[in-house]
């Protein structure tokens, strides 16, 4: 177990979004305001960590043949729990993320980490893998939210800061390109981020 390596993998070298290119659907869809990105990132981190721990703990008794079915049952259980808790105690977030909370069940990051990491590694290592991969995912979401919100709506911290949670207006509202908050903007921003990441990674290797 190598904590530092796991940390760097989660954030940079094996970043779930920018390097493994997993969880694209939610990344495109919800990164339109800061609050959404933060909430989604935290929800995925919690679910990923919990499911990693449980899957790693039961990996010895799970028959190989039905492991995917077992993973999905565990993941779906946690997602439903988080969904219920959000609806009960953070209704604003539950409303704004809508269907994307239940859809975490089929988020490839969680199933991907279950299959690639926690099924083969110990509980403690899996726990940290969940936390670090989750942080890596959250950071990318936040970067995308900040870029898309700033250029698309001219605000910062939408849903959280400013009057009525509309965010702090940084660019006067007649200038921003609303296109960036639409799906096409998601593709553009994500493409640029992946390109920048690949460039930085290949440069650091040399």
């Amino acid at each position, binding site marked *: 177990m190598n904590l530092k390596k796991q940390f760097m993998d989660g954030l940079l070298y094996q970043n779930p979004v920018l390097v493994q290119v997993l969880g694209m659907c939610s990344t495109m869809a919800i990164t339109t305001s800061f609050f959404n990105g933060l909430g989604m990132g935290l929800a995925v981190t919690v679910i990923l960590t919990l499911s990693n721990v449980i899957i790693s703990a039961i990996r010895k008794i799970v028959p190989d043949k039905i492991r995917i079915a077992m993973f999905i049952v565990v993941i779906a259980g946690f997602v439903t729990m988080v969904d219920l808790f959000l609806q009960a105690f953070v*209704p604003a977030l539950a409303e704004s993320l809508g269907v994307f909370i239940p859809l975490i069940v089929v988020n490839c990051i969680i199933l991907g980490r279950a299959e690639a990491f926690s099924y083969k590694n110990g509980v403690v290592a899996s726990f940290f893998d969940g936390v670090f991969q989750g942080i890596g995912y959250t950071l990318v979401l936040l970067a995308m939210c900040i870029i898309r919100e700033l250029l698309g709506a001219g605000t910062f911290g939408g849903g959280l800061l400013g009057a009525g949670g509309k965010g702090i207006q940084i660019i006067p509202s007649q200038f921003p390109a609303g296109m960036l908050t639409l799906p096409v903007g998601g593709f553009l921003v994500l493409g640029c981020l992946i390109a920048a990441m690949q460039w930085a990674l290949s440069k650091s290797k040399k």
Partner: protein
Amino acid sequence: MSNEVKTKEKVDMDPKYIIKLTVTLFVTCVIVAGLLGLVNSVTEGPIEEKNKTKTAAAIQEVLPEMEGSPTVVELTDEMTAAASGAGATITEAYEAQAGGSVIGYALKIVSSGSQGNIEMMVGVDAEGAVTGVSIVKNSETSGIGSKVMSNENGVLDQFIGKSAADGTLSVGKNVDAISGATVSSRGVTTGVNAALAVAGVMG
């Protein structure tokens, strides 16, 4: 800590093996379902409480002149048929009073949006004109369909004053949609049409 996936288990159709698979999966499902039941018992109350408060607030919003609390109206077959004829479902109906007389109805309508059902409260006054539309519950895409849900640019306010006399409302003809959220806008429009149809049979 081994980094190897366990070696391949036997693949043959040994009944014992099949039973083992079935039992393992079944037991897991039972445990998970039990835990979910536990969580549900904790969150059920707060969620219901929130929905109730929201319903009351939504009625007040669409019928601002209402005094006191609304009375529940039993749904009749006629009302249900009128709503489904317009392409939506009615789930609840309330009668609002002010100064001792009925000033209008608040109708809870469910219609389909782009990501699932949209639950909305539509207020219709005694003359059959829409007094307001408020979204109770939705799963529309965050940042796109949700703009319609949160009444951005007054997209929900444009229904105020519309009545059966305006004919069937439809996006692009007499209703403006939010760009990128046509399906969500259509869902709300269908709901308002259904509410007008129901109010028509309620007389």
